[in-house]
């Protein structure tokens, strides 16, 4: 949430709707200590705790965040990872724990890592998904490793809510006086099934590991990537260029199958001394034309140092965007402008994307604010600059103070001295008064500038202004500045 996030010491409750009632969905530690628990109506919670910060719950956002976290687990801990909404992640760590120094160390590392990013987490390892689910949520310990075969004993004391049963069954069992898993497991199955359906037995069996339960793992989106190993390390620029030529067409093929075009491509060159060199190219529009990519990549070959040789090259699409199939030409629109996006890309890869731009009008009378930079291939806007007054060809980056002699309040200067040269004014146009933009800040409430276009005796024309209206002190310093040079 960034700057809008509530302070960590504030009591916070996330609120959702159940039917027409607004109830508390989850609370933070401070609110929990104050006695709030999820399920309380919002009005009651506020009455109990007037300082409560209330925000709307965002289940969709939580889900997305959970999936991102699951992807991270997948990369770091174990390959089979599933999202267990609303607040859990399931990992199948079979065969993966020894890589992290044992189950205890693995859990400790995971919880520690999450705590550093501000996430409070509990973790448990058990034989079955059901047992781990119950122990992680209802167990006392923050981290718990249940040895194989002891899940039933570890779960005996947990409340029956830990079994992932629907609320009405939990309430029904409570009505029968059953509140712990241990006694429930000891009860005869047939009457339970008759009264509550097959769910109770199924969940018990799942928790004790008698029935298999599949984990449906998340699948990360595979990046579009093409790699190639070399039997002999390569180093010559021509060889690298040739290999780029063989890598690009299959990559374009992959992009075409997905209906995508790349905006950002990375070429990684692994050297024999196990270091990597990288070439990155970016394009202004999605591209999957092989010839153009090869040219863009080959232009950057000189920036890499092959060292003792390159043994592996990998070309990846780091950013892809949808790209449809487009009709290249028709007989009717022959007058269309030629496509310059290829040129823009190769220039941008030479000087940087920031250094390639167009100017667009901004509605402002202050010259230095009357334009803005937009990307070179941004769509055209219909508006244009007003054409009332001549504008100078060169606008100085910042106005330069000049010494000038002028009659107040609204005569142009008789002479002025700029960069050490005294210039006598032969004729002048003006003043063109520009007021400060009061909506930008208090400092500009009263300011004004009077612009003059002056020509000196040698014919050179300048754009100079007086800061202020020449009468009132609050409109500016009444000093003279040179702002532009006319052709």
């Amino acid at each position: 949430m960034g700057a809008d996030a509530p302070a960590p010491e504030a009591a916070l409750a996330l609120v959702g709707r159940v039917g027409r009632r607004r109830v508390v969905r989850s609370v933070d530690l401070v609110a929990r200590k104050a006695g709030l628990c999820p399920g309380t109506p919002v009005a009651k919670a506020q009455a109990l705790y007037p300082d409560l910060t209330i925000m709307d719950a965002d289940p969709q956002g939580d889900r997305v965040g959970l999936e991102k976290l699951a992807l991270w687990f997948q990369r770091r801990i174990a390959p089979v990872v599933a999202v267990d909404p609303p607040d859990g992640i399931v990992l199948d760590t079979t065969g993966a724990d020894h890589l992290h120094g044992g189950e205890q160390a693995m859990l400790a590392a995971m919880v520690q890592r999450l705590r550093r990013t501000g996430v409070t987490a509990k973790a448990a390892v058990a034989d079955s998904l059901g047992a781990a689910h119950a122990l992680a949520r209802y167990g006392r310990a923050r981290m718990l490793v249940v040895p194989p075969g002891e899940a039933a004993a570890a779960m005996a004391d947990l409340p029956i809510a830990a079994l992932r049963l629907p609320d009405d069954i939990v309430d029904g069992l409570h009505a029968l006086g059953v509140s712990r898993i241990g006694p429930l497991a000891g009860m005869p199955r047939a009457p339970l099934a008759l009264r509550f359906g097959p769910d109770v037995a199924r969940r018990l069996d799942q928790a004790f590991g008698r029935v298999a339960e599949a984990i449906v793992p998340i699948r990360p989106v595979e990046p579009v990537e093409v790699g190639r190993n070399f039997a002999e390390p390569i180093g010559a620029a021509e060889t690298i260029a040739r290999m780029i030529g063989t890598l690009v067409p299959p990559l374009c093929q992959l992009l075409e199958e997905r209906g995508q075009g790349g905006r950002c491509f990375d070429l990684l060159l692994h050297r024999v001394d196990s270091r990597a060199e990288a070439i990155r190219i970016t394009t202004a529009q999605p591209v999957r034309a092989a010839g153009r990519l090869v040219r863009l990549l080959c232009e950057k070959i000189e920036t890499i140092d092959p060292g003792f040789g390159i043994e592996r090259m990998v070309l990846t699409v780091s950013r892809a965007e949808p790209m449809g199939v487009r009709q290249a030409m028709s007989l009717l629109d022959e007058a269309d402008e030629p496509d310059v996006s290829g040129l823009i890309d190769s220039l941008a890869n030479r000087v940087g994307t920031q250094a390639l731009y167009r100017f667009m009008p901004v509605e402002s009378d202050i010259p230095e604010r009357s334009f803005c930079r937009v990307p070179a291939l941004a769509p055209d806007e219909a508006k244009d600059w007003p054409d009332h007054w001549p504008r100078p060809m060169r606008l100085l980056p910042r106005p330069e103070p000049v010494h000038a002699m002028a009659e107040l309040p609204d005569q142009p200067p008789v002479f002025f001295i700029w960069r050490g040269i005294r210039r006598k004014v032969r004729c002048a146009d003006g003043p063109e008064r520009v007021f400060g933009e009061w909506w930008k800040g208090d400092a500009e409430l009263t300011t004004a500038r009077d612009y003059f276009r002056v020509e000196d005796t040698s014919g050179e024309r300048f754009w100079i202004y007086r800061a202020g209206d020449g009468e009132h002190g609050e409109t500016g310093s009444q000093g003279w500045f040179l702002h532009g040079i006319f052709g």
Partner: protein
Amino acid sequence: MLGALHEVAGGGCDALHAAAAGQFAAGIAGRTRGKVLWIVSRQDVFAPALMQAGLSGRRVIYVEARSDVDVLACFEEGLRHGGLGAVVAEVARLSMTASRRLQLAAETSGALGIALRRWRRPTGAADFGQSTASVTRWRVSVLPSVVLPVPGVGRPRWRLELIRARAGDEAIFEVEACDGQGRLAQNGLVENRLALPAVLADGSDQEAVGRRRARA
């Protein structure tokens, strides 16, 4: 003339600012079709002025290169592309080798290249005397504006010196500056036949320039 490299420089103080020279180049570039690439090493072009010289802001793509070497490289790449109306680059030094490369690039693609010579200090302008491979070389100097019957600044006037033209004669013109369509005028008459940028943009032959010189 399309498919060629032209050099334009300012005279006097304008060698540093290239204001008149820039506007002259904008007037020429404005009369072509398609996008215009404007390559600078320090950005102080005021886009509304280009519009007033006949080059709409929508058509100009600016490239801000870090060094003269980068400027020349971008210049050459722009000329090679061939799909642009014109390529204008503000360069200080232009060696024979560099200009020959540019001229060849322009010849192959048929693009119009304008090297806007602009130096950091006044002494640099001596560089303009050295020969390059460009087809024409112009110097634009400001003149006092047209005298008006009322106080004010009239239409700007320039002295255009055609210092060098391949297979052509030198010439000097005194003209009034580009108007909103990029047209120059002589003696207050905006006349298309006298519009000099047309000579450059429309590819008329050098003899026409020579004839005009006789009348100027």
